[in-house]
């Protein structure tokens, strides 16, 4: 059995101080299909060689613009998308290619919260069935116990347990998101991928959901991978932040550090592009406006992927891919000509 084989190879058992998730040189490519006969005209390099660690109990923020591969990375880590290459380790165990019963067992330890609270709940199911489905799938409880567990989960996310027999369309976006969170908690996971969980919500509701996620984290000792395009939200909720651009990680740093002293020019311009809700600050800010649009992930630029829009790019940037290098404690950036 391959499982026992890997178990033997681990010299030291995984402890809580080790990273919960370790991603090594992860690649996810999607074929671009053209024409009638499916002939691949190249690949979308959605995730293209990502190294990342997520520590137990932390929130790792993952930011980047649409198409940078952040959602694909999140989905690949919890094995909803097949990786093309590289490895994913969860609690020290290689899960890159586990399937069948082993994969289903893994599903009890990981969960996901989705962006769109409308599309992510089956409109034909009641709230109770939605929240109860993980319980049924894994045979965690039956009958009265199951009902009690569903009510408990709804209470935990701040919903009235009486709503278990209602349908999703009777609720507003924020409440639906709470239902989605209850479903994610049903298997009592350790690790949750939050894929833009508040982007689709009304402004006045966003803070409720952020606070809920923070409370649940400390209550259930959860580890989050928090994916978002809004750096102000990510900075608020994360311990560390990874910035992605065109399938690659450009910079990883503790949240405060990333904001105070970004080293990668992309991070710098991303920070300066985010409006601050305060005219006194906002009108006096200096902006680094980027030229043009993101390059195509089918045919990414040679060398550094950001060079086509980078204000600091030099000829060398086109020749070699800059590696992630250390800039102080826990601070990594992939740039030949970093910001000071």
């Amino acid at each position, binding site marked *: 059995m391959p499982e026992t084989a890997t178990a033997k190879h681990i010299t030291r058992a995984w402890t809580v101080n080790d990273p919960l998730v370790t991603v090594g040189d992860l690649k996810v490519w999607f074929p671009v299909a053209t024409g009638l006969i499916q002939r691949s005209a190249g690949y979308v390099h959605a995730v293209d060689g990502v190294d990342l660690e997520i520590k137990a109990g932390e929130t790792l923020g993952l930011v980047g613009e649409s198409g940078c591969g952040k959602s694909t990375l999140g989905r690949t880590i919890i094995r909803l998308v097949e990786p093309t290459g590289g490895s994913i380790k969860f609690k020290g165990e290689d899960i890159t290619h586990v399937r069948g019963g082993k994969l289903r067992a893994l599903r009890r330890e990981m969960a996901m919260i989705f962006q769109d609270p409308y599309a992510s709940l089956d409109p034909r199911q009641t709230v109770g069935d939605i929240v109860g489905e993980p319980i049924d799938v894994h045979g965690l409880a039956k009958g009265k116990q199951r009902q009690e567990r569903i009510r408990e989960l709804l209470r935990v996310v701040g919903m009235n347990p009486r709503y278990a027999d209602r349908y999703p369309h009777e609720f507003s976006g924020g409440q639906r998101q709470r239902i989605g969170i209850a479903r994610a908690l049903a298997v009592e996971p350790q690790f949750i991928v939050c894929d833009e969980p508040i982007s689709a919500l009304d402004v006045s509701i966003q*803070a409720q959901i952020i*606070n809920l996620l923070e409370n649940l984290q400390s209550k259930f000792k959860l580890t989050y991978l928090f994916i978002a395009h809004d750096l*102000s939200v990510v900075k608020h909720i994360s311990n560390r932040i990874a910035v992605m651009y065109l399938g690659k990680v450009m910079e990883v740093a503790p949240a405060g550090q990333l*904001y105070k002293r970004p080293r990668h020019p992309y991070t710098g311009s*991303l920070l300066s*592009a985010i409006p601050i*809700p305060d005219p006194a600050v*906002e009108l006096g800010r200096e902006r680094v406006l980027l030229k043009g649009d993101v390059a195509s992930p089918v045919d990414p630029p040679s060398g550094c992927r950001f060079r086509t829009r980078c204000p600091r790019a030099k000829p060398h940037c086109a020749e070699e891919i800059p590696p992630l290098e250390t800039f102080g404690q826990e601070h990594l950036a992939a740039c030949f000509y970093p910001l000071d």
Partner: protein
Amino acid sequence: MTQPLLEVQDLHTVFSTKEGQVKAVDGVSFELNAGETLGIVGESGCGKSVTAMSIMRLQRPGRIVGGKVMFKGQDLTRISEYEMREIRGREMAMIFQDPMTSLNPVYRVGWQVGEPTRLHNGWDAKKAFSSAVSMLGRVGIPSAASRARDYPHQFSGGMRQRAMIAMGLTTTPHVLIADEPTTALDVTIQAQILDLLRHVNREFGTATILITHNLGVVAGMCQRLIVMYAGKIVEAGPTRDVFAHPKHPYTWSLLRSIPRLDADIHEPLKPIEGLPPNLIDLPGGCSFHPRCAFRVDKCSHDVPALLRVGESQQAACWVTQSGTELKGA
């Protein structure tokens, strides 16, 4: 003082639904001065978009059931559809949230950008196209002459939004209404488009109504600001003053509930409790009172009017109108 360019007076727009009549815009009044950028902020359902649509008379299936929209001495709610068409696209232009669907996929971009001049100025195809090319260049489309021959799907989201702005500007309108123009765009592209809108405002002197839910966008763009909640204006005033000393509890708590990039890490957010109101069944009195931390008895019975509070602001709130300062932990 000079006459405002556009004056909305006590506008009421309703939608009929199965569950009853929805007052999407419920007595909204404001002025837009020549050359200024006015922000209208609020959450989905607050009526900000319907207000803009009603100004352009594009509110259908909603109906304008009261009020006036005064523009250049005429009431836009009363003129004929023919006269309104003459104003749309010529005097007032509108850009929308979704640049993916607001251009017609079967026509070349340059042809579409030139459409208003063919329609309103009676220009021939050639003249309209060359003016479209120059306008595309002015809004920052590189090699505009060749890109004008592209179809919309060959443009990225940011470029399409630039093309929409170019189309709006070809007839040098007096008013540009931008309805969530950057919501569908990435932040770096949003920064580009906002920069372009600032530039347009300066160069063309076009008065702009910027509708958004993003308080950060308003902070950097608008001189004046209107905050809407449940179909009504709850606060209005100069942007600086509203952000510094909000006079309506909704604005006050909204500003405290959003994470700021420049805030200290892990300073907990203070959310507004409860849910956005159901427009079909609004609470009595002030619509915000069930979620309001400052409410007094009166708030649940009587609807407050929008009155002057403080030096430069207006607010529809019994509490601040009586002189109470909004303060909290």
